[in-house]
């Protein structure tokens, strides 16, 4: 899908052709000229032009990806949408956030990934304990390459920059994605005990250290941790 665009009236740019734009904050419009995008299954709400929809097994990574996903339990049902025209995607009125990748890796919970350009590779990676706390499994989805990805969040996501001087603590239920060179570990050193004894031991946070961006949603999924 990458290549020099040669259509008249367009500058010659070395980038993928599918154009991602937001229609309001909850609908993603993708303008396509014969190319393809990968999108969460069932997330198409409308389209103009000619489109074909094809279900992909194993998150679009072929047989190997499928086996990996079976093993890792990171569920991702993806469809490939291909055609000419504009396709509109939305998912249960979630807010949509666009992320432009230029070679770096995006780590994202599979349920928060709406759509990626075909130029981007998706895979899975081991996340350690964080996944376990969310019941999402120990593995998270990675998106690599150059192109655009659309993330879902419950409420408008906040993007927070982590620097070596300013580490960040995040409620595990509010975390959706991150990029950059970040180390993450559980932080439970919170002095938290109520006089009735209820709700103790729930103060888990993920601490991010290093250099990168963390995407946080203003809402919390059901978690074991993070009752602060």
């Amino acid at each position, binding site marked *: 899908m990458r290549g020099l665009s040669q259509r008249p009236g367009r500058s010659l740019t070395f980038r993928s052709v599918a154009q991602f734009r937001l229609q309001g904050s909850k609908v993603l419009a993708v303008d396509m000229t014969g190319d393809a995008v990968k999108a969460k299954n069932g997330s198409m709400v409308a389209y103009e032009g000619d489109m074909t929809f094809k279900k992909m097994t194993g998150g679009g990574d072929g047989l190997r990806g499928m086996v990996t996903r079976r093993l890792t339990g990171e569920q991702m049902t993806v469809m490939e949408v291909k055609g000419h025209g504009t396709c509109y995607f939305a998912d249960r009125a979630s807010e949509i956030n666009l992320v432009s990748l230029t070679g770096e890796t995006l780590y994202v919970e599979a349920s928060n990934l709406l759509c990626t350009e075909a130029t981007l590779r998706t895979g899975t990676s081991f996340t350690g304990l964080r996944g376990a706390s969310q019941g999402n499994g120990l593995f998270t989805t990675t998106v690599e390459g150059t192109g655009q990805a659309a993330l879902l969040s*419950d409420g408008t996501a906040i993007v927070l*920059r982590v620097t070596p001087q300013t580490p960040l603590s995040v409620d595990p239920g509010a975390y959706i994605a991150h990029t950059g060179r970040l180390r993450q570990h559980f932080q439970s050193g*919170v002095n*938290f*005990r109520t*006089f009735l004894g209820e709700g103790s031991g729930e103060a888990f946070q993920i601490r991010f250290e290093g250099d990168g961006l963390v995407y946080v949603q203003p809402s919390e999924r059901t978690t074991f941790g993070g*009752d*602060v």
Partner: protein
Amino acid sequence: MNGPVIHDAQTLPVNDNVNPYAFSVDLNGQWFLQKGKMVAYFGQIAFHGIGHGPLDRIIQASFHSPLHAQDWVVAEGHGRMVLADRAFDVNSYDLEEGNLTVRSGNLLAFEPSLALKQSIIPGFVTLIGTGKFVAASNGPVVFAEPPIRVDPQALVGWADCPSPCHHYDHQYMRGVLGGVRMLTGFGGASGEEHQFEFVGAGTVLLQSSERLMEERPTGTPPDEAGVPQGGTPSTTANQPSTPRLPGQLGDLQRRFGL
């Protein structure tokens, strides 16, 4: 395409909204938070459960009903802290030597300079003093001036006006249609036969939906003659939500949808 706004430890707003659903507190000392409402923070912040330890004095000053204190934590330290509640709209309010009564489930956080008290109206709490607090609502909050009649489920709270009362549509209840309905059960109710009425000087806060936010227990007032709802859980006011019974797991139960 414009990229999203990237915030860091310095550029997060100071005691202001990050977006309609998230509020950033510039913590320098203490704040009270409802449990589970902190989504991220920079800096050195410790969270303490309420009702024990070195904070007893401040809690005495700010909490006047020990029974709801279990739902609150104290954030103490220095840094920027982002608060949010299930992607509901979040707003901050400033009180200056004022009072504001708010539905208990809508209150997220407040400065210790304010005092939190149980309202005489079951299911509501009153904040008194000078300071800032943060409240959530299902849809943006609309401010209205009395006289006004309000769907009970849409009421978030009110400031100053000390006259919340019930209003019944007697014309409907005694009228022809009501009679037909009583005789035949046919015709149904409009769903608007009963409202809360406010008159006098003040401000009424409404949310944009009649869907209630989950109620938080406000504690049980003493079982005395003349105390509304005395001795019974306050959450039963006119709520479909279940009151917390002894033996239930409370928050944990809610979180797991039991």
